[in-house]
């Protein structure tokens, strides 16, 4: 009798939910303006030009316009939408999340791992994010990337949340039975996407996977974490590694071991092996050598692959340069670019390891004095620690001694995981020089942040484009961008001008740099010519 009542209640509730889902075509206006809030000074957004359902990029894909897109429960898309929605419910929340943050908040809501792909696949739950963006449920802005819900996404997430609440109110046995009627209304987001390989069955919650070569295991959430602890600030139970629970391992960029002068590269590895140094070869997006504190994990009986070990990266990062490399990189400009990237990678103690003697510096395209000056500049100007060695054997010796000393230094230290995306970069404390830094970034976040060709924003590309004109330096471009943040904005301003002469002078009074100098009429004119010449340029 009571069972019957429960079934009936269930059925009614599910039909209500179904009815509310069919209202999807009526989009609620976004309640929170903060989702789309831009930094001050930026023009208000017009339409965000993401793919809405009326666009096809891949002509072969069939559009299901009438069908509302609803992600499967506990799928990647589902978890991401819910995680963002819940963040928004907290008063004062910032309205967006960074990638690592979002993965970490969404993971408990998802049956598939965000960081570790399943066996035989290269996709993780994160792959569904691009689908969400295409369906205009999610937008990605800024660099480093921020993810936030669109109005449609918010509305959908709201419904998902209410369904989720209903689901939890109903006891487990009834849930499984009542799953029938609404199946055709719920469309697996991933099924319509050619690339997705996600299956419908639920997968074990904590996916085990390869950690050695991808090294992506840095930020798995602690088991048993509930959604209640979600805040935009530091979590109460931060990831930390207690003394004795981790090893200090040297990481060698795989390019240092292959290609080019094959013999010499192998020699470095051989020397390290001979010295008994524990090292790991992996693809580093920046730098040639660094050290990670890797959690000691015991293999689980019955499983081939060891469980994922957390990894935090120590503050030291080494860029190795042989004299001929140095010469080549100065000539083709990589020298400064590499240093720029090293300075921004989040590790606070960069080291320049220069390998070579006077004889190796002779007979190169640049005079030795130039090379030596470049090295001194790196120390004085860029603030890198410079270590000079004679040859590859001495490089190996240096790496060996460093590894041993670092292991000793960190013997009794408790390490805490710090997130760059959430907390920003903390400048290296001078006092701290003697004391090893214990607030470290996860390897996953570090390597992800150091990717070379990162996503570009409109602002970044526009700035680079302006700098293609000789005489238009970074400071000048920055000043122009303060007035006209996008090409559209600049073109619109030109349109508004009353005369050609006005257009010519549009930028001449823009002030740039510390001294607040004028951009000047000449440069203003050149930009005008570029953007306003009606016919072909010459």
């Amino acid at each position: 009798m009571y069972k019957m009542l429960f079934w009936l209640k269930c059925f009614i509730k599910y039909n209500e939910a179904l009815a509310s889902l069919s209202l999807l075509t009526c989009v609620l206006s976004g309640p929170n303006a903060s989702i789309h809030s831009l930094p001050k000074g930026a023009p208000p957004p017009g339409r965000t030009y993401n793919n809405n359902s009326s666009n096809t990029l891949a002509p072969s894909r069939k559009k299901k316009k009438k069908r509302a897109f609803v992600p499967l429960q506990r799928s990647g898309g589902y978890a991401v939408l819910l995680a963002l929605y819940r963040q928004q419910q907290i008063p004062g929340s910032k309205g967006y999340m960074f990638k690592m943050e979002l993965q970490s908040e969404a993971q408990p809501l998802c049956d598939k791992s965000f960081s570790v792909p399943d066996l035989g696949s290269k996709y993780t739950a994160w792959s569904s994010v691009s689908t969400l963006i295409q369906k205009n449920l999610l937008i990605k802005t800024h660099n480093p990337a921020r993810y936030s819900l669109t109005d449609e996404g918010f509305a959908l997430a709201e419904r998902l949340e209410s369904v989720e609440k209903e689901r939890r109110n109903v006891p487990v046995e009834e849930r499984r039975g009542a799953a029938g009627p609404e199946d055709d209304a719920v469309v697996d987001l991933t099924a319509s996407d050619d690339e997705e390989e996600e299956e419908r069955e639920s997968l074990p919650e904590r996916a085990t996977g390869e950690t050695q070569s991808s090294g992506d295991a840095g930020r798995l959430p602690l088991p048993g974490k509930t959604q209640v602890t979600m805040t935009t600030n530091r979590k109460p139970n931060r990831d930390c590694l207690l003394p004795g629970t981790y090893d200090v391992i040297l990481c060698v960029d795989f390019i240092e071991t292959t290609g080019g002068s094959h013999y010499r590269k192998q020699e470095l590895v051989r020397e390290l092996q001979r010295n008994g140094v524990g090292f790991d070869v992996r693809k580093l997006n920046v730098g040639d050598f660094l050290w990670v504190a890797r959690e000691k994990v015991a293999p689980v009986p019955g499983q081939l692959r060891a469980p994922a070990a957390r990894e935090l990266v120590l503050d030291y990062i080494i860029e190795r340069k042989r004299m001929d490399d140095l010469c080549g990189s100065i000539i083709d400009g990589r020298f400064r670019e590499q240093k720029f990237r090293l300075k921004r990678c989040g590790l606070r103690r960069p080291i320049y390891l220069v390998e070579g003697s006077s004889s190796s510096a002779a007979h190169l395209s640049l005079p030795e004095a130039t090379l030596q000056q470049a090295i001194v500049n790196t120390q004085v100007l860029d603030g890198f620690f410079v270590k000079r060695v004679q040859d590859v054997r001495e490089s190996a010796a240096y790496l060996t001694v460093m590894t041993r000393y670092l292991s000793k230094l960190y013997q009794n230290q408790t390490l805490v995981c710090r997130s760059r995306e959430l907390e920003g970069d903390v400048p290296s404390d001078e006092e701290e020089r003697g004391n090893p830094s214990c607030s470290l970034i996860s390897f996953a976040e570090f390597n992800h942040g150091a990717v070379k060709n990162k996503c570009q924003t409109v602002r970044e590309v526009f700035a680079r484009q302006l700098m293609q004109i000789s005489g238009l330096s970074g400071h000048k471009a920055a000043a122009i961008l303060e007035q006209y943040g996008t090409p559209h904005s600049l073109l619109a301003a030109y349109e508004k001008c009353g005369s050609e002469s006005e257009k010519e002078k549009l930028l001449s009074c823009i002030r740039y740099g510390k001294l607040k100098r004028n951009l000047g009429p000449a440069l203003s004119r050149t930009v005008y010519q570029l953007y306003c010449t009606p016919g072909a340029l010459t």
Partner: protein
Amino acid sequence: MYSDSPQREDLRSSSDSDEELPVFDFLQPRPSTDVASQKARERQQQDREALKQEQERQKAERRALVEAAKALRPEECIRHMVVAVDPALLQLEGGGTLLASVQALGCSCAIEKQPLPRSVTWARQAPSLDLKRVSPSACVTQEERHSGPACSPTLTSWVREQQRRHPDKRLSLAVVELESYFRRKLGIRFTIFTDPRAKSHQAVVHLQLHTGVSVRFLSTWKEFSDHITMTTKAVAEAPFKRAREQTGFSFYLESDWAGGQRVDKAGKGLLQAWKRQIQQFNRVSSDVAAAILAAYPSPQLLKKAYSQCRTENEKLSLLSDLLIRRGEGVTSTTRRVGPELSKRLFLLMHSRDPEQNLDASL
């Protein structure tokens, strides 16, 4: 009754001087107004002078700023450097070479007792401000002090102590003629069997990890002088180069693009600049840019093409079917620009949000 104009003129002409009385005072004696207007004139005068002084001050300040900036430029900066050398250092073998090299640079050299023995420090003299600002660098030579691994705690603790005493300075060590020192102290036989440099590894790494101070080993005094002159140059140019890098952008313009495209007054060169602009997107090669350029040889022509599209879809895929020519004759291949790049270019030209991301998939 009197006519207006003569009195008015008189009034006007008497506004600057206090001696002339208004013409019509016999008509209406107004002593209070006279005094009041006199005071008002005085105040006006004072205000004007104060304003003038303020403007002069601002001009002078700006001049000083410009001169200070000029003094930091690479061509100029070295002249304003002062290299201070400890007398004890000069008494050593390489003293003369050192002095000569520094003077050859064109900067001033001061011989004065340094807070650290046998050290060199750098200071910058700003031209108009007459201020000596000490650069945070000092280079110490250690010849005798360094004596092998047993010394590592001592070396580190000594350096630490120096750092504590001079918190505003960045220290670096230079060790000169270490090998000959070892040879003298320990005999030739020793150096055959043990590499003195290997022994010093431990001490140096220990020093690095605990103090962040680097050590440079130099075999000759000439090398030491060269090191000092190079450091002088680097310290001199540091502020200018650092300021140059602070653009607030998170990207670095690679050398391929640094320098920009020269454009003459007539606008010749802009086509190449436009091509380079197209190549600022990730993963756009010269061939691809050339294809887009050929179809739309100016931003305005591209804009016009977009406005002629009827749907947004058309705009998004405007460039997708442009053919890219690569190679010549038999081996030439044809590819299309593709929808992805077409979309990125569309977003760039139409977005009103500077923070809009162009690559949605990563």
